[in-house]
């Protein structure tokens, strides 16, 4: 049983496959793109087409399309610096793309759990006060939501006194109080072990089943994702590939690796890329050092 990094993180010469290798040459305007570009999905909660953004001469996102439909769990993965957070910020309207468009359904209400929630102890704030801030929820609602995220005991505590995991559940509770139809979580399991990760994924899956919202989950883990994901999208400035994760709960090797409880919540995502990125991020067609499957250990494990 190797350690987490050694077994599961990709090799240095990570390969990605791609169908639109000319993507970068595409003109940066939605109208100038080929007719084959699908229109906005009318059933989607949020729909993005041809998103591109560059800062300081460096491309952060190139020609990204994305749809999230009702009740759908979409997991967004990609290496550091792949533009995951930038994409989330564009979708939320916190950043304006240089090209492309985001279409939001009229009744879209987003619950957002940001990547890092550094609360300043310079501002006095209790958990309940924070949850009711800017809203008009009844105290009973707040109590109920706190119970839902398993944090009832924090009720009267100061935000600054909470641990990272507790704070995250409080921010999740705040997002839920807005009765969202889309929940966006940016790297909620960063720095958490697999059992904590499985626990949070179970909670999110359960909440989705109860409330019926769509979920966009950003994860830095390129291979282990939430088992309930309906779709996994691998981003490295452009969409490298997307697909469905493979459940591992039945596989004895994974049950041994994660534990029985965790294996049910976690799943493996196998990348099918036909290009690779060099260290500077430039794309190359496949066959230069890496095979079809970017995960060197993937074949032997499954």
């Amino acid at each position: 049983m190797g350690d987490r990094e050694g077994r599961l993180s990709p090799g240095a010469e990570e390969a990605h496959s791609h169908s639109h290798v000319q993507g970068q040459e595409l003109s940066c305007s939605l109208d100038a793109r080929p007719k084959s570009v699908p229109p906005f999905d009318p059933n989607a909660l949020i729909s993005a087409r041809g998103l591109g953004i560059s800062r300081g001469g460096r491309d952060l996102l190139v020609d990204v399309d994305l749809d999230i439909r009702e009740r759908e769990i979409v997991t967004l993965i990609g290496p550091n610096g792949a533009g995951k957070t930038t994409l989330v910020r564009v979708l939320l309207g916190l950043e304006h793309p240089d090209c492309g468009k985001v279409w939001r359904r009229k009744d879209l209400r987003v619950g957002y759990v940001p990547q890092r929630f550094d609360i300043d102890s310079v501002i006095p704030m209790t958990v309940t006060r924070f949850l009711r801030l800017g809203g008009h929820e009844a105290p009973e609602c707040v109590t109920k939501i706190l119970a839902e995220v398993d944090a009832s005991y924090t009720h009267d505590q100061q935000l600054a006194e909470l641990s990272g995991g507790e704070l995250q559940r409080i921010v999740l509770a705040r997002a839920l109080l807005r009765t969202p139809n889309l929940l966006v979580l940016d790297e909620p399991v960063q720095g958490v072990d697999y059992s904590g990760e499985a626990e949070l994924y179970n909670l999110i899956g359960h909440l989705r089943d109860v409330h019926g919202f769509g979920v966009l989950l950003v994860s830095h883990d390129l291979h282990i994702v939430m088992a309930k994901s309906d779709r996994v999208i691998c981003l490295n400035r452009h969409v490298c590939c997307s697909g469905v994760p493979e459940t591992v709960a039945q596989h004895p090797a994974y049950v041994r690796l994660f534990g029985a409880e965790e294996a049910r919540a976690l799943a493996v995502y196998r990348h099918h890329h036909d290009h690779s990125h060099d260290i500077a991020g430039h794309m190359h067609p496949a066959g230069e050092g890496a095979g079809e499957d970017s995960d060197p250990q993937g074949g032997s494990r499954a």
Partner: protein
Amino acid sequence: MLEPFMVRALMAGLGLAIIAAPLGCFVVWQRMAYFGETVAQAGLIGVALGLALQMNVTLGVMLIAIVIACLLLWFSRQKFVALDSILGLLHHAALAAGVIAISMIRGPSVDVVGFLFGDVFAITREDLMWIFAGGAVVLAVVAWLWQPLLRIAVHEELAAAEGVDRGRVRTVFTILLAVMIAIAMKIVGFLLVMAFLVVPAVAARPLTGTPERMVVLTALIAAGSVLAGLWLSATVDSPGGPSIVIVMSVVAGVSLTMAALKRP
């Protein structure tokens, strides 16, 4: 019986204590103390402008305070130098420009020290009117923007994602700060105005658990300091504004010491 000048000093000081409390808390929460300091010290330029153009000095100060605040926001758009260095630059540039501008005003000599430290015992009825009218506007706007201001202070990105227009809220807050500086100028002067905002809020922070209670306690500490400071000033004949500030500083020192002792 109290002398009329003493009554006016009390009214001005207590009024300012209440007006400054919510803004002072936000300045502390958003780490804007030095930002406010820089904007305040530009006030002298505003005084010179008002005198040169023969318009109301208070209006001149408000105008220049807003200009300097915009300049600060503009300079902080670049990423080569951090905000504290830009504040260091503008802070001294504004003070220097103000002193030069005042010295170039022709006519009767202007009391620079009076503007830097204020003179709470020289408050006129007209000054009182400015303080109360301006203060009412400031308090009304703060009450109106309370929730969005608080949400930005807690977590700006989250507030923005939830639909708070952070650009608008920040702009309004900066204007409020400018108005506040202008109305406090006569009482405590440009050098001490930020003390009036920041020090009572610092004193109140360790003793409170919610933002609203912190504002109320800030106002109470400031009001108490005004009473004690003016009494001190009348008793030992010390300057009014600095006496108030020294009292609130002692309270803040005691409060922080107690908070430090609580931590093992």
